[in-house]
């Protein structure tokens, strides 16, 4: 980890240049029609899922707190952003930020009591919290209840999701390579030793949870303005489990791996559509195979490179973050 200003600026410059390049390539591909509307939507979903995965990554891989309810914060962000936009006509960007802030506030309030729990207890509690949020939304008629909330303006563009994704990568990268990140990692490594070295572990756990919730909320807002319609069941714990799979597969605390695994696993179900119902068998099978390869320490990144050499590669943004 470099701490000098020049080294840091150089890294930032390279990252931003790579991001702009990737963005320009994809924008060109979209405008020339090489990437059609269908694939464009998948691409945007990938970007949103990357934001979600990275925010989960902060909590699970960096801070070592197994949360199975992260999609609840996405739900809160989606509903908060959509509702405020529909009711007050707040501009798109401000609605997004509002969604993130509300989710972050919930993250803070939920984190304070639940993060006293560890391991499987925390996992079950967060899962329960997720279910409570879903059921609560289903019973709020002002938010459309179980039928969902329609009529959200379709303001999310590729540029916006891409920008938000880059912003998330930058912010979270800066967090984990600061003293705050070091504190979070120390919580993961050994809570008792961390406390003995003067680290207020509760504070940093709640900080990770709140930050994670904020970005999940941001992703939720983007999702709402992309789909133009949201319903509670989209955000139930199956979505949370998906996020856990992305980050576990991505490798411990590994940004690039996380981005790669999220991209692949978001795209995979779409790519398998040709197999009809069989994809429900093939997808889990592939998951098992990838997990086995992971355990044998064959990184997703290396797999991507292997596939890339075969196909010429599309994983442009995956190596930018590390």
């Amino acid at each position, binding site marked *: 980890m470099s701490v000098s200003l020049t080294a840091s600026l150089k890294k930032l410059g390279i990252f931003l240049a790579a991001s702009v390049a990737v963005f320009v390539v994809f924008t060109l591909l979209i405008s020339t029609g090489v990437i059609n509307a269908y694939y464009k939507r998948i691409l945007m979903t990938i970007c949103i899922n990357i934001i979600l995965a990275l925010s989960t990554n902060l909590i699970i891989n960096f801070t070592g707190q197994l949360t199975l309810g992260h999609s609840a914060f996405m739900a809160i962000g989606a509903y908060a952003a959509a509702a405020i936009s529909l009711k007050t006509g707040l501009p798109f960007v401000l609605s997004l930020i509002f969604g993130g802030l509300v989710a972050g506030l919930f993250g803070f309030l939920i984190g304070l009591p639940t993060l006293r729990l560890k391991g499987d207890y925390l996992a079950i509690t967060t899962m329960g919290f997720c279910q409570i949020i879903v059921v609560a939304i289903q019973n709020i008629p002002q938010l459309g209840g179980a039928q969902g909330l329609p009529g959200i303006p379709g303001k999310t563009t590729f540029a916006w999701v891409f920008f938000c994704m880059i912003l998330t990568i930058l912010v979270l990268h800066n967090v984990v390579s*600061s003293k705050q990140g070091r504190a979070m990692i120390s919580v993961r490594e050994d809570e008792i030793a961390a406390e*003995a070295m003067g680290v207020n572990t509760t504070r940093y756990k709640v900080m990770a949870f709140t930050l994670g919730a904020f970005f999940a909320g941001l992703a939720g807002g983007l999702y709402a303005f992309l789909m133009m319609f949201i319903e509670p069941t989209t955000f139930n714990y199956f979505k949370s489990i998906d996020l856990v799979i992305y980050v576990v597969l991505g490798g411990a605390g590994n940004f690039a791996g996380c981005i790669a695994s999220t991209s692949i696993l978001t795209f995979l179900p779409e790519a398998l559509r040709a197999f009809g119902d069989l994809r429900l068998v093939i997808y889990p099978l592939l998951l098992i195979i990838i997990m086995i390869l992971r355990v044998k320490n064959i990184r997703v990144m290396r797999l991507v490179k292997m596939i890339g050499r075969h196909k010429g590669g599309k994983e442009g943004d995956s190596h930018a973050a590390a």
Partner: protein
Amino acid sequence: MPLLDIQNISIRFGGLTAVADFSLTMGDHDIYGLIGPNGAGKTTVFNMLTGVYTPTSGTMTFDGESIVGLKPYNITKKKIARTFQNIRLMKNLSVLDNVKISFIYQEKYGLTSAILRLPSFFHEEEDVQKKSLELLKVFHLDDKKDEMAANLPYGEQRRLEIARALATQPKLLLLDEPAAGMNPQETQELTELIRWIRKTFKISILLIEHDMRLVMSVCEKIVVLDYGKIIARGTPDEIKANPKVIEAYLGEEAAHA
């Protein structure tokens, strides 16, 4: 005014009194030893001192302030640091990062500075990097700074744990069985190290240890615990000659050591 003043602390777990009426006063630059048979309550005393347990009764004052009921991380901020009986390093982190953990509470920059990379971030991080490397250097671990802590040999892991504790800038260092698992050669080096730490860092040291040669040669005063009670206290020579200690812990041959 003494640096550490413990008066009659006791702790009960249900019906069991683990430590009863423990008292100890330490001044600046003292090295004291805490000995006794296994299960006598030595580590429990450490755990009360460092806020892991709160004593059921009694008072503890450090540097003029009461430390009863403080959380472990706040006790560290009051300048008491410790090592653990079973080494508790961050095994998957580098040697350097292990030491840097101890500087977290001393760094002042906030989350905003971290995210926006404001000057205070670079300023303080460079400072911490420098201080950590200096500390590793005096512990002869600087050439292994990028090594994973788990890959260090046992003796160096112990050394790193002490370095990490010292990085919190303590006035009192608690060492819980620092010589456990060390061979005589390593124990000899540790003895020198402890003396050297006191001299260089100008701090007080309280240590739990079963290696009597280490305890007797390095400690100015020794407190003996048995079944949670203090059965003796005094200089190494007094302790060696104390019949109660010989019966409860040392055994006959140690009296001639």
